[in-house]
């Protein structure tokens, strides 16, 4: 060639920002490439990094878009923006740049969103309280949260099959509305540690990482969450409010409290302590629920006597105590114990008061600790044979049965 290559090559941050603000909602971008933006001063000046593309209070439409070589965050969606992004790819964002970042007030329609070569590869959503129904539908990138998530009463967070949420220290889902997470066998929904590279690989380009029990906190299904559904869901490496393994801040990985939530084909793995805690008249259903490898002596299931969910096909392995753990006390109404894949264990002495019946299904095992007392003033029905005075299917341990 007769001419030499350019002496100045383009760099990330060669120009500042492309902003779509209020009034730009009719904008349409198709087959557009946006390159080398992201600095208000000189390329690479970390004091002046700017988001390359800002969508603020806008419902602009984007289709077949590439945002390349930004100096930091490539695309930020904020302040009640409802843009449509289809086939949008972000590559090469410098300075730990995020490919996609959004706040909770925005509700973009995202389809086929991809990224590579950025600071990390994810859609980052600020934490906070959902202001309205939201749907997390992406299966091309994991979701990463900037903080805790609250789903308030009468608001629905719908998570689609195949979605993955990667979470970090102490992060918590508080559900007072509806968490609708119905995955499928082939496309389960995953809540896991940011260090978990078994899904979407090394999202944070951190090199080989080993996730730990307690890498994030929990999903709490609370009053108002009755319509919540978790199907084909994996909850992995939860269980600590602080740092993984900090025994001062151990938490249940999944809490069912004042809820009738429906769980089916749910697995809770590698919790920092108790896998699933059921309390305060939680009466939902748990079918095919498996809890494994709970640390710090954690039990797979723990429940108070006020709660009475429908339990079926519960399994567990590798937990601190391999048992269905029950608070002691007095049963407040008739109860039937039907879990046979693991023994029941009592946290304290227990009473069946006069006028109430406790039914133990065939195969049920109750293990009791030294000094524990099982008092029956009402009816204890074992092996499907009603009796006012009998023994349970099995009783082991150091406690006593007093009838």
């Amino acid at each position: 060639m007769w001419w030499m290559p350019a002496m100045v090559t383009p760099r990330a941050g060669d120009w500042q920002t492309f902003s779509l603000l209020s009034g730009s909602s009719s904008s349409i971008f198709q087959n557009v490439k946006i390159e080398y933006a992201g600095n208000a001063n000189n390329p690479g000046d970390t004091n002046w990094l700017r988001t390359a593309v800002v969508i603020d209070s806008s419902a602009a439409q984007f289709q077949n878009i590439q945002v390349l070589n930004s100096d930091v965050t490539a695309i930020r969606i904020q302040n009640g923006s409802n843009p449509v992004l289809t086939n949008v790819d972000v590559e090469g964002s410098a300075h730990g740049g995020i490919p996609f970042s959004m706040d909770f007030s925005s509700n973009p329609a995202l389809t086929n969103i991809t990224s590579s070569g950025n600071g990390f590869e994810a859609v980052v959503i600020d934490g906070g309280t959902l202001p309205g129904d939201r749907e997390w539908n992406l299966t091309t990138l994991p979701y990463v949260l900037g903080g805790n998530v609250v789903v308030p009463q009468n608001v629905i967070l719908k998570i689609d099959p195949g979605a993955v949420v990667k979470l970090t220290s102490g992060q918590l889902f508080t559900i007072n509305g509806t968490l609708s997470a119905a995955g499928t066998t082939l496309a389960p929904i995953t809540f896991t540690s940011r260090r978990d590279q078994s899904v979407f690989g090394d999202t944070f380009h951190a090199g080989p990482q080993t996730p730990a029990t307690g890498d994030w906190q929990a999903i709490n299904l609370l009053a108002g969450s009755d319509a919540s559904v978790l199907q084909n869901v994996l909850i992995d490496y939860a269980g600590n409010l602080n740092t993984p393994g900090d025994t001062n801040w151990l938490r249940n990985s999944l809490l069912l409290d004042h809820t009738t939530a429906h769980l089916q084909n749910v697995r809770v793995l590698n919790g920092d302590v108790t896998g699933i805690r059921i309390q305060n008249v939680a009466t939902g259903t748990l079918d095919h629920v498996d809890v494994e490898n709970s640390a710090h002596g954690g039990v797979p299931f723990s429940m108070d006597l006020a709660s009475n969910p429908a339990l079926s096909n519960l399994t567990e392995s590798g937990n601190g105590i391999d048992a269905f753990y029950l608070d002691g006390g007095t049963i407040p109404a008739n109860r039937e114990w039907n879990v046979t894949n693991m023994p029941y264990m009592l946290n304290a002495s227990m009473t069946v008061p006069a006028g109430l019946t406790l039914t133990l299904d065939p195969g049920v095992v109750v293990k009791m600790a030294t000094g524990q007392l099982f008092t029956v003033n009402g009816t204890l029905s074992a092996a499907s044979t009603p009796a006012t005075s009998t023994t349970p299917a099995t009783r082991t341990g150091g406690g006593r049965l007093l009838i």
Partner: protein
Amino acid sequence: MAVRAGAWRSTASGAPSASASSRTESRSWSRRPIRASRDSRPIESLEQRLMLAVTPVSGTITQNAHWSGTINVTGSVTINDGVTLTIDPGTVIKTALQQSITAHGTILAQGSAAQPIIFTSTHDESVGDVVDAGNGNPSCGRLADI
């Protein structure tokens, strides 16, 4: 566009005075209102037409506007509310150091797979026509060093 760029480079390299002419033309255009670039391009000679293929823009767009060819955003551009900026397929928008594009109005940037619309740096010579880098080292000056 590739043919024009090649011819322009040849001219710039062979006749440094043409480079100065190019810069002068660009600056005078930057003071003009933003308007449809193709319609206003002189076509008397190949040399002149090539210089003007790059349209410098800056400031506030207050009326509907149309961009095509290579656009050099020399200063930040704002599209006012209620105004539509239409960008043709194949348009390359090269924005200078520290500058931004801000839309309070509508941008219709509908490229095609074969002719995408590209927003990039003034230093990016891989697409569109070469523009002044805006850094005191105009591209034609650099080419004159060859």
